[in-house]
């Protein structure tokens, strides 16, 4: 008799939650170290070594916090959308772990982008908030994050939650398109894209360098926190499974802590 069982491929084995816990352990400290180094350089460039802007003056330094966080808020959602696809198509156990871990991080990056935008707007525009396309769609983006986090806490069965939230997450991708094109579709106080344009960056190198170093710093911070949060989520689900097992061993009605 021949075995019909197909051996899982290299990437399937790597993405197995148990294997992920093994190899990701060695990623955390190098990622954290790189993040600290990049933040040290980024903050030095942003606050000490870079010049003031000829129009914005010293408030240009707020951009080095605002823009990386705005980009990261969208990238985080991109990670969640890819994970949602993985949940719905392959039902991969690590996909909804990744999606759940990224949601609070994305919410924090979005909150920072919104708050620093308000602080920058007061001296520059004369107002911290206007209900225009970019700011409103960004606020909606933040509320979508909060909705997704609330949904993870609402469902006790996290595997079922993963599938429902995956559908919701993919619908929310529409808002990423709205955020991106909002400055072109509607009249707004917010400036149009000035870094990634067809003609190249519309910004001098003295301002681009601190911007990109801080973008890398925040990206590595996200990677570090994402890996740690995914490890924690796997452990949380194991704790819930073991508590269920302990309750069954006792012969009592299972009353485990939900894996939230």
């Amino acid at each position, binding site marked *: 008799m021949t075995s019909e069982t197909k*051996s*899982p491929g290299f990437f*399937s*084995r790597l993405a*197995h*939650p*148990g*294997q992920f816990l093994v190899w990701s352990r060695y990623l955390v400290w190098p990622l954290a170290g790189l993040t600290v180094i990049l933040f040290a350089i980024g903050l030095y460039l942003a*606050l*000490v*070594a870079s010049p*003031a802007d000829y129009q914005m*003056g*010293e*408030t240009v*330094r*707020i951009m080095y*916090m*605002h823009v990386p*966080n705005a980009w990261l808020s969208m990238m985080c959602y991109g990670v969640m959308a890819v994970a949602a696809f993985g949940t719905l198509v392959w039902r991969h*156990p*690590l996909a909804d*772990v990744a999606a759940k871990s990224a949601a*609070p*991080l994305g919410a*924090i990056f979005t*909150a*920072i982008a919104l*708050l*620093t935008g308000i*602080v*920058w707007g*007061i*001296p520059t525009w004369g107002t911290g908030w206007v209900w225009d396309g970019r700011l409103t769609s960004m606020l909606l983006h933040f509320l979508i994050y909060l909705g997704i986090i609330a949904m993870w806490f609402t469902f006790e069965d996290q595997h079922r939650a993963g599938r429902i939230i995956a559908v919701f997450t993919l619908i929310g991708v529409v808002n990423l398109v709205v955020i991106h094109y909002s400055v072109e579709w509607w009249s707004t106080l917010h400036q149009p894209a000035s870094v990634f344009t067809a003609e190249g960056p519309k910004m001098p190198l003295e301002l681009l360098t601190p911007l990109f170093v801080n973008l890398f710093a925040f990206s590595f*911070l996200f990677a570090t*926190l994402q890996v*740690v*949060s995914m*490890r*924690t*989520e*796997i*452990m*949380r*689900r*194991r*704790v819930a*499974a*073991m*508590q269920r*097992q*302990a309750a069954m*061993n006792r012969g009592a009605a299972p009353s485990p802590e939900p894996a939230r």
Partner: protein
Amino acid sequence: MIEAGMHWDYVATAYAMSLGLILAVIVWVAFDARRQRLKLAALEARGIRRRSARAETQAGPETGTP
């Protein structure tokens, strides 16, 4: 170098808010990780095993749930 008096208070507020929120999320992620690690260690010390962990022991690490 940043000059005092040129909206430095807005710059300081933006950086303080950003770094404050970042520090808060780092502390929360680290605290949550530690709490789950301790819970898992306590359950393992009581000799409790997941069903899938027992299956993994028999069939290798390719099976099982998170």
